[in-house]
Structure formats: C-alpha cells, structure tokens
C-alpha cells in the first residue's frame, strides 16, 4: 500500500485505487433513474447498512461475492484502474493484481460493454494460475457483466458476481436478469450517485 486515506488506498503493482463503502459520499438527491436497491442504498445511513443491503441482494440471487471495477487499455490487457472492494473475496484483489491475472482473465475478452452478461464456471477457466487461485478461494461460478463508464470513455466497468456453487447450470435467464439489474443499479449508485474516485 503506497497511499491510504479514509476507505481508499493504492495497490502499488499497477497503481490501482482500491476503495470501500467508507470512502463513498452519496449525492443528496436521486435522479429519475432509480430502482428499489438504489433507493434503499440512498436511504441507508451507514456504510455497514449499505454493505448488508448489497450482501442480502447478492445472497437472494445465489451469489456470495461481487467485484466492481473499472479497467483500462482493453486493447492489450484490461488493467484495473479502480476497484470497489467492499464485497470482494478476501485475498482475491491482492493476488489478482500482484500476479497480473487480469492479463489472462478470459472473461474480459468474452464480454463487450452492454453485451450480454456471461455465465461462467471454474471449468471454463483455461489459465492454470487463475484457475488455481479461484479454486483455492472457492470461486466456482459466476456472472460477468461489462458496462461503459460515464465520464471515462476509454474505461470499461466490470461487475462480477461470484458464487461458491459448482457449475453454471443454476445460472438461468432469470438469474442473469436479476444479476444484470443488480449490476446496473450498483453501477448507477457508485458511478453516478456517489462518483468514482479520481485519485485519493
């Protein structure tokens, strides 16, 4: 950690800004575009309350963890620029960045901004180091959503919902739809209502 401030720090390997609920400063008013999750997050008084809300929503769909990040330079490798870490598995971010696993993470290549969400399972992960880390941490299936980033046309936003359930057979269109809505709602809340960190 090179620099740290309330709820945000920089991981030196690639200069990625990592931040949590504690860093957020929600807007006073909501726009006309909102969902029940956004309204609940907006009304929540504390970081721990917001954390509980998102975890509850994740669990209701069948997931345990969620990564929310912006990635840059997707022409070669999708390098993480910012990472909202509140719902990521322990050790995942640190090792993913330290071992530059984003360079071999097939999910970035398999999705386009506002394309369809991708359902994946551990058996799909061809790269040995990434597969080993996922196996160690119990990350066995998930949904990967790629979105555009307001204000940063060269950056993609990635929302990755992850489960310990083996196989992707349980991820039907209903799960994909609820995942897409959770991803879009959280993206609206973090990128539009709160704003993304531009240095800490």
């Amino acid at each position: 950690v090179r620099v740290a401030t309330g709820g945000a720090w920089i991981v030196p390997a690639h200069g990625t800004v990592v931040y949590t609920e504690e860093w957020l400063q929600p807007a006073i008013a909501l726009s006309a575009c909102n969902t029940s999750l956004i309204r609940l997050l907006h009304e929540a008084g504390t970081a721990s309350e917001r954390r509980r809300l998102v975890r509850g929503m994740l669990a209701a769909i069948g997931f345990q963890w969620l990564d929310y990040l912006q990635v840059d330079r997707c022409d070669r490798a999708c390098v993480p620029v910012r990472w909202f870490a509140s719902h990521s598995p322990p050790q995942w971010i640190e090792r993913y960045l330290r071992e530059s696993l984003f360079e071999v993470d097939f999910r970035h290549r398999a999705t386009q901004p506002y394309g369809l969400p991708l359902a994946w399972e551990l058996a799909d992960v061809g790269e040995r180091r990434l597969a080993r880390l996922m196996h160690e941490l119990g990350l066995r299936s998930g949904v990967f959503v790629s979105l555009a980033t307001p204000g940063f046309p060269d950056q993609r936003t990635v929302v990755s919902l992850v489960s310990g359930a083996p196989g992707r057979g349980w991820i039907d269109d209903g799960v994909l739809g609820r995942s897409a809505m959770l991803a879009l709602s959280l993206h609206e809340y973090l990128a539009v209502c709160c704003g993304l960190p531009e240095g800490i």
Partner: protein
Amino acid sequence: MTPTAGITWMTDELLAPAETPVPRGRAQLMVRLLEAQDSAERKQVVRGMLHAIGFEWLAYGRVSMQNDVPVPRMFFSSYAHPDWVGTYFQERLYEVDFRHRDASPSGLPRVWELDEVVHRSTAAGLGRGHQRFAEQLHASGMRSGVFMSLPSAGGAQERTVISLSSSASQRGWIVDSVLGQAVMLALCLHEYLSLRMPEAQPPASEGLSPMQREILRGLAQGQSDKEIAYRLNLSAHTVDYHMRRLRQRFAVRNRVQLVHAAARGSAGLALAGGA
C-alpha cells in the same frame, strides 16, 4: 410509415443471415434468437418474450445527441407500434422526447408512464410539440414503459436506444423483476442486432460469413485463437480453418497482416467492436 431522410430503416427481414455460432455461457433467449431458422421464427421469439413480460411494443434505434437533442440515425421497426413510429419521425417528436435527456449515462433503464408525460408537457414555457408528444402517446395506446439509452461505438454522443412500451396504465407494475427481464430482452436483441446489422459490419467483409466477421473482430481485439474459439464456442481446428481462409482472402501471410488488411477495409472501427 414514411421513411425519413437521414435515417436508415431496418426490419428483421433485412438482417444479414445468421451462421449461428452460439457463444458459451449466454442467455437461453440469445441461443433461441441465434437458432431461429428465419425471420418469422425470430419475431415469434421476441414477441413471445415481450408479451410474457407485459409489453406490446419494442423500438430499437441509434441516435446522435447534439446539444441534448437526439438526431435519429437508424431505426429498427419490426416490433414498433406502426402508427406511433410514423408520427414520431414525421412530426420530429423525438426532439421533445424527454426520455432521451433523462436517460442515465450508466445505462440503467428509465421507467415512465403517460401521466408523467402529460404532466411535464403542460409545464409553463413548453411549446406545442410537447403536448403533441403526450397526445400521440395517448392516441397510440402507449401508457407506460422502460427506456434504455446505451453508449454506442463511434463517439460519446452516439447512443443506442431501446424502448419497451405497454398499454398498461401507471408504472407500478414495472417492478424490479419486470425490469430484469426487460433488460435481458433488450440486451439480447442489442447483441443480436449488433452482429447482424449490415451497417455495423465492415465494408471489407462483403461476402464474409458472420462467423468469419466474428473471428476478425476477435483478432482485431487482440484475442488468441484459443480465446476466439472459446468466445464463439468453436473448436481450435475450426478457428484455424477460418484463419487460413481469411489469410487467403485478404492475400496476407500472418495474423498481424490480416488485422491490418481487415482494418484498412473497415476504417478500423467496426472490427474493433464496442457496444
């Protein structure tokens, strides 16, 4: 419906034929679209899904936002309300359609209802066009809906707009679960049409199969043969076969030359992909 100057009009029947490389890990709805034998079957799939969620009409188009006013570029009319579309474009009602301006830059869908449109159209200082917009929505029987505006390839002002509309009054029925299904239908159609629209394809690709275009797109994005094979759910052997055919076609000897040759023919934009 009278075609309007400057707008490319598309229908399902005009789409490029699908060679159906069904990608792995995608929604069943997308698989059904890709596996549909013809336009009639595809329309049945989309209309069936629209009605199952509670909507009657779906409009899909591309606009260029200029000083906060949408300028239509393309409209796909197969699932749209025919009377509404005619009036909307002939009377340029898109210029007063506040949903374009209200749409979130995050892509989150905006839920609307007719009462809200009527209320806003009567605000002081607004011209007759706003009232006409509300009147025409009412006359067409469109009373509530979901409106999405997604960033498009080709510049910050370019947006792809997907609008699902219903005759159900009030917006209360559009709960989060309905929104989730609406978003999946919209994204499936968006991905499908992005692959099949002739103007979205590189000019150099005339005569190329959709699968070869997809392989070229992957190549232009720096994907390895293995990654392309994974994304398109093909064997490495099939990708290798198409690579050889493409190298012959563009008269080049390696993949780097192939990317350059294909990009020259496409102005480098369509192959790079995007939303």
